[in-house]
């Protein structure tokens, strides 16, 4: 009996204290909770606001990237422009090809072009480095005349060092006497 009373008494005490404690804490907790809630609410609101913005931006970014990829793929298929042996003047077909490339460049101003000049394996290697440069300069000058900004055009010559077709015959040589277009995104 006495033991039970003792236990009861302790329990009552604990209960009482905890009520007191809880009463005090409760306020704080409530306050805390309120604070938390407020913070949470604000966070939730902010998040909601963000969520409203992000998808749209993300979508835009996504389309721009996809679009860029698509455009680059399109440009990778740009036809080469061909030349006669030891010549760097543009024939009718070459000029037609360049007009098409120029149209594309005018409509897609975020891209630049590297004009690679190449030669076939005949003739002197050193002279061909100069001839390849001259071929790419010919193309650049024509594109400038069609209104492409000079800052978007870079020339580089590889002479006879990087043939498209390594065979030793006129069919291969004709393919190698070319200016090849490498379209890249603008360097900012």
């Amino acid at each position, binding site marked *: 009996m006495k033991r039970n009373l003792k236990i009861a008494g302790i329990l009552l005490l604990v209960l009482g204290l905890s009520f007191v404690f809880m009463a005090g804490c409760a306020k704080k907790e409530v306050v805390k909770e309120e604070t938390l809630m407020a913070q949470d609410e604000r966070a939730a609101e902010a998040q909601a606001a963000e969520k409203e913005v992000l998808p749209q931006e993300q979508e835009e970014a996504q389309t721009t990237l996809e679009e860029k990829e698509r455009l680059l793929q399109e440009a990778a298929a740009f036809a080469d422009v061909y030349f006669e042996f030891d010549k760097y003047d543009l024939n009718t077909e070459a000029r037609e090809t360049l007009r098409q490339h120029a149209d594309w460049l005018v409509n897609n101003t975020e891209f630049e072009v590297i004009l690679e000049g190449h030669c076939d394996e005949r*003739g002197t*290697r050193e*002279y061909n480095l100069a001839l390849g440069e001259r071929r790419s300069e010919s193309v650049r000058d024509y594109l400038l005349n069609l209104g492409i900004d000079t800052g978007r055009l*870079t020339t*580089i010559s590889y002479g006879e*060092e990087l043939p498209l077709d390594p065979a030793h015959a006129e069919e291969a040589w004709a393919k190698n006497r070319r200016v090849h277009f490498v379209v890249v995104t603008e360097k900012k």
Partner: protein
Amino acid sequence: MRKIGLVFIVTVLLWSSPVWGKIYIDINSPAFQRFPVAVPDFKNLGEQDDTKKLSIKFSNSLAEALKMTGFFRIIDKNAFIENRDVAGITADTVNFHDWSIIGTEFLIKGGFQYSNENLSAEFRLFGVVEGDLIVSRKYWGTLDEIKIMVQKFTGEILLALTGEQSVFGTKIAFTGKKGKTSDIYTINFDGSDLVKITNNKSLTVLPHWSRDGKQLAYTSYRRLNPDLYVIDLSNRKVKTISRFKGLNLSGPWSPDGSKILLTLSKDGNEEIYILDLETKKLNRLTNDPAIDVSPTWSPDGSKIAFVSNRSGSPQIFVMNVDGSKIRRLTYEGRYNTSPSWSPKGNVIVYEGAANGSFQLFSIAEDGSNFVQLTFENGGCEYPTWSPDGRYVAFSSREKGKIRICIINSNGLNLRVLHEKLGMEAIYPSWSPRLQLY
């Protein structure tokens, strides 16, 4: 490479002979008949048996070196009638009649001693007709320096008979190409000691030696544009020399070593410039909307030969070093390029289109004496002169292989520099005389 070890070959003048035959036969003349020379096996002067067969090693190596110069005809050993047990290696022990009777004009006698890794060898060159000693040397070294001893003595023979040393102490730099990348290599005149100089993982073209043989200028695409660099061969340090937009094509160094010729396209089209390597001052020489490229210095540095298509197709022109007095040099053929001016002055070798292929031609500075030098099926291109003006190295296309070949300046004695390079060998450039040994 055991270049350091070579320094320890000691040479001693056994006989100070005045330079023999002051009237030298013109070995560059097309009428020149090669010197007939006999090279019998060397005599073992030591006490131990010749287990290493050095007797034959010496004579074979010497015959090969003499043959490589293109100025000697080696008499077949089977024709020798001398009694080897009786004859010695000094003038008083040789019966010169045994040699003149088999048609040789020159005789080389040699002896060696080999013990405990030490090798010594004596070489004597005799004139068979007079029965006199022309030049002699003794060398000390190790077994793997036999070739060097032999090449040194060959140089002494050439000096005595022709007035000028050999080119065994020179190298050829070239571009070795595998697939889409290429690097610069150097190799000895005899095809030994192939060394890779650059490691660019891109195209590396047009090597040109500095006049002291310590540096190489070249053009490389390692920064995605043909730019001009100079590499120091002692420490492989690379300096950027020219990085203009467009072409920065390497060219030969001036005879005084202070300037370099280059081709740039930065001013709108391909023109030739001189760059002073000290002051960095750039001087433009050509001023023409045509392609101007491939310059080469005259040996006195007063004129420059170059290629221009200003008259409709690529031809060779000559101008003064200040760009004035431009005149056309080549009128034969519709495509003439790659001029290289002989260090001896009057002759320019170049590449010209001939009957569907490209071959090497030589022409005098005044346009006379036009000669076709090569008749190779696959064609020859990019000639470069040896520093003594006696040889031309070039790139040849034969059965699909592109290799460096060497030819005497009279068009004879064509030799492939290295048969098994495993890559296309192009853009050769001949070094000045180097202190190799």
